[in-house]
C-alpha cells in the first residue's frame, strides 16, 4: 500500500473516531440530567443503567484519549470497535423485540436518530474501526510495500 495513502486513511479514521467519542461523551456530560433520564429509560437492569449513566461517557472519553496518542492508538481503535459492536448488538436486540418494550432512541450518539438510523450509523463506524484495526496491526507490512 502506498505509504501516503496509508497515513491519510489511518489519520482520517482516527480523527473520525476521536470526534465521535468526544462528541458522544461531552454531550452526555454537559446535559447530565437528561442523559441520565434517557439511560434509565433503556431496556436494561436498573443497577446496570445506574453504572452506565457514568460508565458510558467515561469509557467514551477514555477511548478518545487512547486514540490521541501513537502508542495507545491500536488499543483505542480496538476498544472503539468493541464499543460499536456492543451498541449495535443492543440495537439489534431492540429491533428483534428481545426486550419487553422498545425504549426511546434518545440515549444514542445523536439523540434525534431513530434506532434504524443508529444501526446504519454504527455499521459505518464499525467498518471504519475494523479498517483502522487492520491498518494499525499491519502497519509495518503495509507501509513497506
Amino acid at each position, binding site marked *: 500500500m502506498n505509504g501516503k495513502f496509508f497515513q491519510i486513511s*489511518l489519520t482520517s479514521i482516527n480523527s473520525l473516531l476521536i470526534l465521535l467519542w468526544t462528541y458522544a461523551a*461531552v454531550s452526555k456530560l*454537559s446535559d447530565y440530567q437528561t442523559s441520565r*433520564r434517557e439511560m434509565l*429509560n433503556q431496556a436494561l437492569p436498573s443497577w446496570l443503567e445506574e453504572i452506565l449513566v457514568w460508565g458510558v461517557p467515561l469509557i467514551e472519553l477514555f477511548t478518545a484519549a487512547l486514540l490521541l496518542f501513537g502508542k495507545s492508538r491500536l488499543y483505542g481503535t480496538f476498544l472503539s470497535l468493541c464499543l460499536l459492536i456492543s451498541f449495535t448488538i443492543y440495537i439489534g436486540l431492540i429491533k428483534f423485540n428481545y426486550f419487553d418494550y422498545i*425504549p426511546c432512541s434518545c440515549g444514542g450518539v445523536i439523540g434525534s436518530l431513530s434506532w434504524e438510523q443508529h444501526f446504519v450509523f454504527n455499521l459505518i463506524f464499525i467498518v471504519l474501526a475494523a479498517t483502522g484495526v487492520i491498518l494499525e496491526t499491519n502497519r509495518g507490512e503495509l507501509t513497506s510495500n
Partner: protein
Amino acid sequence: MKTLKINFSVLALILGLTLAFTGSAFKPAVVGDLHAKISGVWTDIPDNYTQGVDYTCVESGQCTARFDLQGSEAPSDENMIPSSLEDGTYQ
C-alpha cells in the same frame, strides 16, 4: 507526517468538544407547562429544569410532556407540545 497526524487528532478532539458544547448551548428554549403522567392523568409538576431535574422516566409509556395551556385549559393531546413528550413511566 507525524506532526500532521497529531494535529488532526487534536483538531478532531477540539471539533468534538465544540460540537457538543454548541449543541447544548443552542438547544431550543423550554416553553410550556411541564406535566407528568401519574396514574394516567397529566399532573402539573415543579418545573425545575434550570436547577436540575429530580425525576426519572423508566421503561415504557408516557412520562412527561409540556403543554401550551391557555388560562384554565386542561392538558390534553391537543395542547401538548409534541417534541416535549418523554417516553417512560414517571418516578
